[in-house]
């Protein structure tokens, strides 16, 4: 340890090259090596001195982060003119460049087109300081309100479920206040202390207080009720409230029972609501869901592959529900799959089995494919691509053969477009360039030609996007999550005119994606380009709060992945029985999110006018033709 410390305390000084570079920058050409050494030592010492003083200001400012203003104040102490113009709330990363044998670190300063800033609609004025009082603790018990930290942290919930023999009852351990809430994880010595005692599995403490019962009732009623506004609120509450873990078993049972009953009754709307509850639960960062997966996953899988989900399969858009549930499934696989529970492989197995079965109905087939496709490009490559020929033949049989039933036909169409949608992007990646229709036909059979055109479109789309990126003047380095046009309030740190260069069509609400990993010190600045092409009449703002309430959810964006980063959107088609739909003109938004390296490029489009999904995809090119989902939603007519 002493070794380490000594290491740390070794006096470090700036390299002499820096001195030379600085000297050159002020016009001193030939600086002798000795002067460089002397200078660098002196400068290093002064810098350290200033840093030490700046620390004082940080401490008195009651912060953990040293800011530029601390440095300014420290300079003032030394009677040195502070450096003006370096105010930044965020970390300013150095960029590195080398060439000609010299290495340089510099700030990247973008040229900003003033006209763009001027033409940008003003962001909201940041809120003034406000004072909010709340109870931190009442008679020694901390009420579970959003202002307080979650009463039982995830680790605690996990410990409770994985080590059930240990007597830790969250919510009641305040009596032994000494081992209080401070330790997030239950102290390891607890185990030792209780070794001698007879261990009994504690009776499950699932009694809810009156308030909690009321809350539960309100929430569940709102979630499946008819008022969409209320539902949005309830889902928001489920997704954010920290004190829900005691109600979690009830929610879980509610959902699984609800799905069971409503699948039998073919109540599509209710199934959608229940899936949205699952989504909200998964979005809540304070819940330890692992314990209830045995109830939730069957419910979700049911919604993916059930033979019939609605009363009129020919008209209702149960496909959207399947898509949504498939995404949920993929998300939970990603989050919860471990080597012990093997969720992903079990799910894959189940889905593949029904896919391979010849007798499987089109609906189930669609669900299995959707479920598999959401699991990622690798799954598509290994499990779906080899099946393309077979599926193609099957689709051909329905399409070209004698008219069996309208339902089958619709089902086949959907499967076809689904396959095209998912496979095209994968093939575009793995297949070398010249896209030969004949080649495709031999490789993929019936679907070959269509696939070929899709792949080609995908490629051109990619090229087009790349061009647009090069052309556009709209590139602005947005540090972290300032991509906020309408954000709930705490934004605007950098003064009222945070330059968020986003062209926003009139009815668009853009929820900013939370930063991927907030603790990360300096994520590479991401460029966002938002383009909107609006067609036809302005859309009447319909009750599709669904996606807008969800797109702000943290989980989807904190799980960066190559496939399922798109916000799950339920697309409801006109004519379905749920009464929630409306026909609306097409409007396309493309959100391009590209890491600053500009090496990869993603596009993702969604076709809901009232919402836009910001994708955040790490690495790899995922490209989608913007009209293909549109086609898929249009086709049932």
């Amino acid at each position, binding site marked *: 340890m*002493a*070794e380490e*410390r*000594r290491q740390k*305390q*070794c*006096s470090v000084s700036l390299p002499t090259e820096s001195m030379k570079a600085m000297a050159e920058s002020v016009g001193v050409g030939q600086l002798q090596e000795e002067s460089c050494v002397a200078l660098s*030592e*002196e400068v*290093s*010492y002064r810098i*350290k*001195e200033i840093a*030490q003083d700046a620390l*004082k*200001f940080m*401490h*008195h*400012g*009651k*912060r*953990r982060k040293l800011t530029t*203003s601390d440095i300014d*104040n420290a300079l*003032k*102490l030394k009677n040195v003119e502070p450096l003006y113009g370096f105010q930044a*709330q965020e970390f300013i990363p150095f960029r590195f460049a080398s060439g000609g044998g010299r290495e340089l670190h510099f700030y990247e300063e973008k040229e900003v087109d003033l006209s763009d800033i001027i033409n940008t609609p003003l962001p909201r004025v*940041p*809120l*003034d*300081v*406000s*004072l*909010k*009082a*709340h*109870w*931190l*603790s*009442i*008679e*020694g*018990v*901390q009420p579970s309100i959003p*202002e*307080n*930290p979650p009463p039982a942290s995830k680790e605690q919930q996990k410990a409770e479920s994985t080590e059930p023999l240990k007597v830790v009852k969250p919510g009641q351990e*305040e009596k032994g*206040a*000494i081992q*209080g*809430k*401070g330790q997030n994880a239950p102290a390891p010595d607890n185990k030792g202390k209780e070794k001698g005692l007879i261990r009994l599995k504690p009776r499950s403490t699932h009694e809810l207080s009156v308030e909690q019962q009321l809350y539960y009732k309100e929430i569940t009623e709102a979630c499946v009720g008819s008022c969409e506004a209320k539902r949005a609120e309830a889902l928001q509450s489920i997704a954010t409230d920290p004190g829900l873990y005691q109600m979690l078993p009830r929610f879980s049972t509610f959902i699984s029972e609800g799905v069971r009953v409503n699948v039998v009754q073919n109540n599509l709307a209710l199934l959608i609501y229940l899936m949205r509850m699952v989504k909200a639960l998964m979005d809540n960062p304070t819940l330890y869901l692992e314990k209830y997966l045995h109830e939730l996953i069957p419910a979700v899988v049911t919604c993916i592959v059930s033979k019939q989900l609605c009363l009129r399969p020919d008209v209702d858009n149960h496909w959207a529900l399947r898509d949504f549930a498939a995404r949920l499934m993929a998300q939970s696989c990603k989050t919860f799959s471990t080597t012990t529970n093997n969720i992903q492989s079990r799910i894959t197995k189940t889905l593949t089995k029904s896919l391979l079965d010849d007798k499987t109905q089109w609906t189930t087939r669609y669900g299995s494919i959707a479920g598999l496709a959401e699991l990622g490009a690798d799954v598509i490559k290994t499990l779906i691509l080899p099946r393309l020929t077979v599926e193609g033949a099957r689709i051909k049989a329905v399409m070209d053969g004698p008219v069996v039933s309208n339902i089958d036909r619709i089902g086949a169409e959907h499967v076809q477009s689904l396959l095209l949608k998912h496979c095209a992007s994968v093939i575009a990646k793995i297949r070398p360039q010249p896209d030969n229709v004949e080649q495709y036909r031999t490789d993929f059979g019936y679907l070959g030609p269509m696939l070929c055109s899709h792949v080609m479109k995908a490629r051109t789309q990619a090229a087009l996007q790349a061009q647009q990126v090069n052309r556009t003047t709209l590139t602005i380095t947005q540090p972290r999550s300032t991509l906020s046009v309408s954000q709930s*309030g*705490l934004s*605007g*740190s950098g003064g009222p005119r945070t330059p968020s260069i986003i062209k926003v069509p009139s009815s668009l609400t853009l929820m900013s994606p939370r930063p991927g990993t907030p603790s990360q010190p300096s994520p590479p600045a991401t460029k966002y380009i938002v383009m909107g092409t609006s067609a036809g009449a302005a859309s009447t703002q319909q009750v599709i709060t669904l996606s807008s309430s969800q797109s702000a959810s943290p989980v989807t964006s904190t799980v960066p992945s190559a496939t399922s980063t798109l916000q799950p959107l339920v697309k409801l088609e006109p004519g379905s029985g749920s009464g929630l739909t409306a026909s609306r003109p097409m409007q396309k938004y493309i959100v391009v999110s590209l890491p600053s390296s500009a090496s990869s490029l993603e596009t993702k489009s969604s076709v809901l006018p009232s919402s836009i999904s910001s994708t955040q995809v790490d690495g790899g090119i995922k490209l989608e033709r913007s009209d293909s989902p549109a086609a898929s939603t249009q086709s049932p007519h």
Partner: protein
Amino acid sequence: MAAVQGSIVDAKEEADIKSEPATDGFGNNHANEAGVLSASPGSSAAAGNNKPAAGAPEDQQTLLAVLQFLRKNKLSESAEILRREAGLPEEVLDPKGADSAGSGLGSGADIDGGDASALLSRVTVSAAGGAKAPTKAGEDQPDVNVVLSAYSQQGDPALYEVYYSGLKKFIESVLDCHRAELSQVFYPLFVHMYLELVYNNHEGEAKAFFEKFSGDQECYYEEDLRILSSLTKKEHMRGNETLLDFRTSKFVLRISRDSYQLLKRHLQERQNNQIWNIIQEHLYIDIFDGMPRSKSQIDAMSGSLAGEAKREANKAKVYYGLLKEPEIELPLDDEDEEAENEEGKPKKKKPKKDSTGSKSKKQDPNAPSQTRIPLPELKDSDKLDKIMYMKESTKRILVGADQLVAISFFFPSFSFFMSPLQGLTAVDVTDDSSLIAGGFADSTVRVWSVTPKKLRKVKTAADLNLIDKESDDVLERIMDDKTASESKCLYGHSGPVYGISFSPDRNYLLSCSEDATVRLWSLLTFTCLVGYKGHNYPVWDTQFSPYGYYFISGGHDRVARLWATDHHQPLRIFAGHLADVTCTRFHPNANYVATGSSDRTIRLWDVLTGNCVRIFTGHKGPIHALAFSPNGKFLASGATDGRVLLWDIGHGLMVGELKGHTECIYSLRFSRDGEILGSGSMDNTVRLWDAMKAFDDLETDDFTAATGHIHLQDNSQELLLGTYMTKSTPVVHLHFTRRNLLLAAGAYNP
């Protein structure tokens, strides 16, 4: 603010600005030092003989420097007078005699006279090593700095490592009981040897020396070591504050006689004058008789920039008792002549009674006399407030050791959330919890009303003329309803506001800022009334006296200043800290002021005399929170090291250590009856501690106040009553309402 009877300012014109010398009480220690000197080996003893009667060498050096300064400025008369006063021989002023006089001073201290005429430049006397390096010539230091340049060429730089490791080997080989005590020597020795090397331009050796031995030092010195490590050149030494502290003040060690003898014998045997000289010059060894202390005892007390406090420093009598509360009858006709002891210390455990309750005529023997510090007279409104206070007190939730379990259930607490990005830097709540104020990094001060009563300004002068001054509700009529709002913003500072304090009568607000000013704001007009300028550097903290009128401020300039609101200049300057004064608190009886500092010590100052009456060492980081217990007997302090230490003011002893926080503690507060101590920290928690038990344990403990050696048992866990996590909100301020509801405040940092 009310006029003060027999204003302190006039009375103390002479004693004004009585500052303790920065080199902390040399005079106190002459006797002791002389003892050390006479026992010193080698030629140091000879040096001692040579010495004129004036006293310790440092004093002489100081005098000589002053004399030189006077002469240089052609103030020969003053110089002559001073010389005679100090009893220095004539030849001191005589260039020729300088040599002989100088040779007697400070074992070979090499002091640069600066100019070639070298009034005071001395030939460096070889101490014992025999071989003497020549005087450094032409070193352009300001004359007064002569005092500071105490490092001289003392021998072969290559031998430093040998010396140090020799001593290390010796100390490692001594008996266990002495080892801990003698190990204290390592750190100051290391620092001074390193500085000597640097001072004498042995850069390489210095670096090697540092790298070799810095890892051995106690971890709580790490911060200083870091500063030290950056210091590699002689030029750096000038202007480095930390360094100045090392050189101007002696590092105080407390060592038992046995251990000291052991060390001395060893050094004598080895003829290790190098180390011996450093010990003599830069260390103050406080020798006591009795058992050597254990490692844990030493660790508890050490950690400060300049070692432990000398025992003498904490011997002064402190009147820690409370002042008598003026008796207030509900009909307000009676004047407060027949003041009764309402809050007498012995009564503290009794529940508060209303004003007609039992009275003890006895004056608290530990209380200062009522008029020791002139205090402002009570106004009618103050009396009304007192009555309110007493009424509320009766409703206070009583807590005590017997209700220990119930405490955490009886203490609801709630916290204020600010959602700003400006950065909240200071918070204060009025005593009656009706207003809360925040200081922000954007230089603003904001005041909120917590009650439904909104904040209103006084009407303009023109409007005031119109109102009926005879009416009963004139106080209500002067307020302008149009200005009513829940919060007001006060603009005036030009830097982050680091400290804020309400006056007890809620009419004024103090704020101090990076811009080096303290500002007084009126809460009637919501304007700035005065800007007190005196500190030249950022002011870190300020607080009103519990009786109003006076206030204290402390800042980066290492002094705390006592002000009265109606004087633009400070009444007292409390100097003595070796680094920034980071927090300041008034004693409940307003006769004392406690200051915490970055030098990791706490000092208690007498407001009347301006003397430092207590020095508490033991913290391992800058102190950021202080709190007096309501009975005035105890002090709690919190620092960046995450520990809360409890101090007995009367005995000048550490009496408890509360461990639990993981980050800097920014606020401490005792409950109204002193039973509970709340601490708020950067680690987003509020913790409650059983203060009563902590102090009770101590009183049953039979500690010897004489030696000041404390055995701290590690009972933090038993004393911890509860930990309350906030949601990413560092707790900046704590406040117990009159009914013992705990309020916590902090800025929410999502």
